[in-house]
């Protein structure tokens, strides 16, 4: 058992994420709530640093996708306890961004997309997963409804990859393109393809999708803060 010192508690929380131990993460969250630790402190000082460690170790090839999935699941378990507490105190976890995800029309593959969604959620993004075989207009409608910052479009097949372009066209048609960043991914997708269809970014795997999403959010913030003349 951890001691009562918050630093020890935070360090155990961090470790529970690294270990991918959902039960521990969840019980530590309950313990924090019971002992009066502010939910945001638990998140920002305990669980989030754990997720950062996982990301770093994954990038170095020291952790693997099943480890990462377990860590994301542990993060979800902790948040399931802490989110209602945040609501009670009228606080809100700062969202890294709102992302609408889906697999393109005609394609029913989603393993890569699920990985991306899981990792984005674990890294503080609010993710809405539209599932598979999603039409461009559906992406646009959901992006409008949620005020999405980013739309992520996945495709596994060389044939359905072409429909990623259709999603961008739907966003343009809906007048949303200037507000929404589009990132694309999937086995046959390349950076060159992303550029060709006018996407804002391409990620080769789930972890780089998180980095890309952060970068796209930074670009968006910079753009919003830029003087109007520069935007023109």
């Amino acid at each position, binding site marked *: 058992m951890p001691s009562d010192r918050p630093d020890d508690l935070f360090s155990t929380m961090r470790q529970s994420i690294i270990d991918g131990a959902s039960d521990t993460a969840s019980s530590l969250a309950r313990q924090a709530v019971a002992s009066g630790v502010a939910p945001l402190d638990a998140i920002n000082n305990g669980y989030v640093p754990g997720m950062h460690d996982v990301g770093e170790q994954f990038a170095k090839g020291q952790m693997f996708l*099943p480890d990462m999935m377990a860590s994301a699941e542990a993060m979800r378990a902790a948040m399931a306890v802490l989110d209602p507490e945040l609501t009670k105190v009228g606080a809100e976890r700062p969202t890294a961004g709102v992302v609408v995800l889906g697999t393109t029309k005609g394609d029913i593959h989603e*393993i*890569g997309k699920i990985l991306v969604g899981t990792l984005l959620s674990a890294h503080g993004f609010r993710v809405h997963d539209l599932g598979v075989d999603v039409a461009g207009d559906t992406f646009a409608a959901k992006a409008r409804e949620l005020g999405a910052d980013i739309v992520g479009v996945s495709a596994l097949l060389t*044939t359905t990859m072409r429909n990623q372009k259709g999603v961008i066209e739907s966003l343009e048609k809906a007048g949303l393109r200037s507000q929404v960043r589009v990132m694309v991914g999937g086995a*046959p997708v390349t950076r*060159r393809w992303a550029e060709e269809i006018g996407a804002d970014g391409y990620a080769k795997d789930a972890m780089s999708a998180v980095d890309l999403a952060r970068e796209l959010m930074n670009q968006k913030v910079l753009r919003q803060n830029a003087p109007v003349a520069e935007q023109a």
Partner: protein
Amino acid sequence: MRPKFELLDKALIERILDEAFQLLEDPGVRVAPYVVELLSSAGVAVADGVAHIPEALARRLLDLAPRGFCLYDRSGKPAVRYGGDDVHFDPGSSCLNILDPATQQARPAMAADLVRLVQVTEMLPEFAAQSTAIVCNDVPQEIGDWYRLLLVLWYSEKPVVTGAFSASSLHTLLDVLAIESGGSDELRRHPRAIFDVCPSPPLNWSEFASQNLVDLARGGIPAEIVSMPLAGATAPVTLAGSVVQHAAECISGITIHQLAQPGAPIVWGGAPAIFDMRTGKTPMGAIETAMLDVACAQVGKYVGLPTHAYMVAGDGRVIDAQVEMESGMSAVLGALAGINMISGAGMLDFLACHSIEKLVIDAEAIASAKRLIAGIEPRSDSLALAMFAETGLHGDFLKLKETRALFRKEQHFPSAVIDRGLASSDGSTPGILERAGQRVEELISAYVRQPLPDDREKKMIAFAQREGKKAGLEGLPEILKPEYAPEAGLM
């Protein structure tokens, strides 16, 4: 003796099949509405889109599937035999990108690239069949399926491994094949093409895959199940577990197929792969992927069916030592496993890119693999004694008539793609890429198109012009105008 490579003993194969049959009953297989009645009327319980296939029925239908069949060349001669331990190779299929011959960088593939690839494949005896290798980016997507098949049939006489990307395009592809064969009856008698049909892992026959299975069976055109378990992602992480899933997907597909038309030709095939736990990629060149291919084929052979696998592909992004190490190893293992059709040569970058230069290098690996499975034979009454009796301890074997009579049988002579120390004409020592590039150009220069019988040629052009026009196709890419312009009546 024919050398053979096997990974599973009989007891393990029986366990794999036993678990596969159990999976077909529970949890069952997701199937599309198109086949629900077909399955129900045979006594399969289908609830909420999931079919629970009884083992007895599946075993009976497995027994109905033919043990072997042939694909025919343009002249109607049998050219590829599926069944037994026959081994054939064809290039990988449906690739969007190609390594540009000049820059060796990946770029979108065009119809002209497909034609070059087909011409090179036509010239290489290592490839018994063509494939619809490339998705032509300069052809409208809605007609892409049939147009690339038409190009292959236009430039090749070999059998073709192909596939449809939708239920409706299958019928257009069959129309093109029927024109080329001289009618649908002739196509049925002497099928020139086989169609890949892919279940979605795990255990899901989508609407268009279900429909393809049924329509191909009823049309008498061979189907090749390409089951693609990704070990650790869309299938159990263990190789044995993924082989079970592959078997269950094949058996359920064969059940649907044989119910539609008992005795229709079908292949136990696949493109299984491991799922890389660091990158989420599906490395086709991984040794475990090759192990899955070999094991899946072994199970197919055990139930007596023709087999297929996806091998001879590498994962690097350029032609390098990694890509060719992976491709060469997998060519050897596939040949030793006696897999009837091995697709994948020419491909790299996790099947995202094709390369004609790689195709000619892979052909050398394939030739070596074929030499390997030809094995070591006693070629004369004595193995060595008679030759020693002639030459004694002088060691002048080079002079012996047996040497001259037998060396061509014993040794395979690779093309100039393989550096065996032959000096080039100008004394330079070109690298592998340059040698492969030269070989490609030589093969294309030596290629001569064999025209179809005149009436079929006209019909194909008329078909292509009519259907192409509907999709806004300007002219017929890569079918040279002089080949059809004189027939002004067809324009």
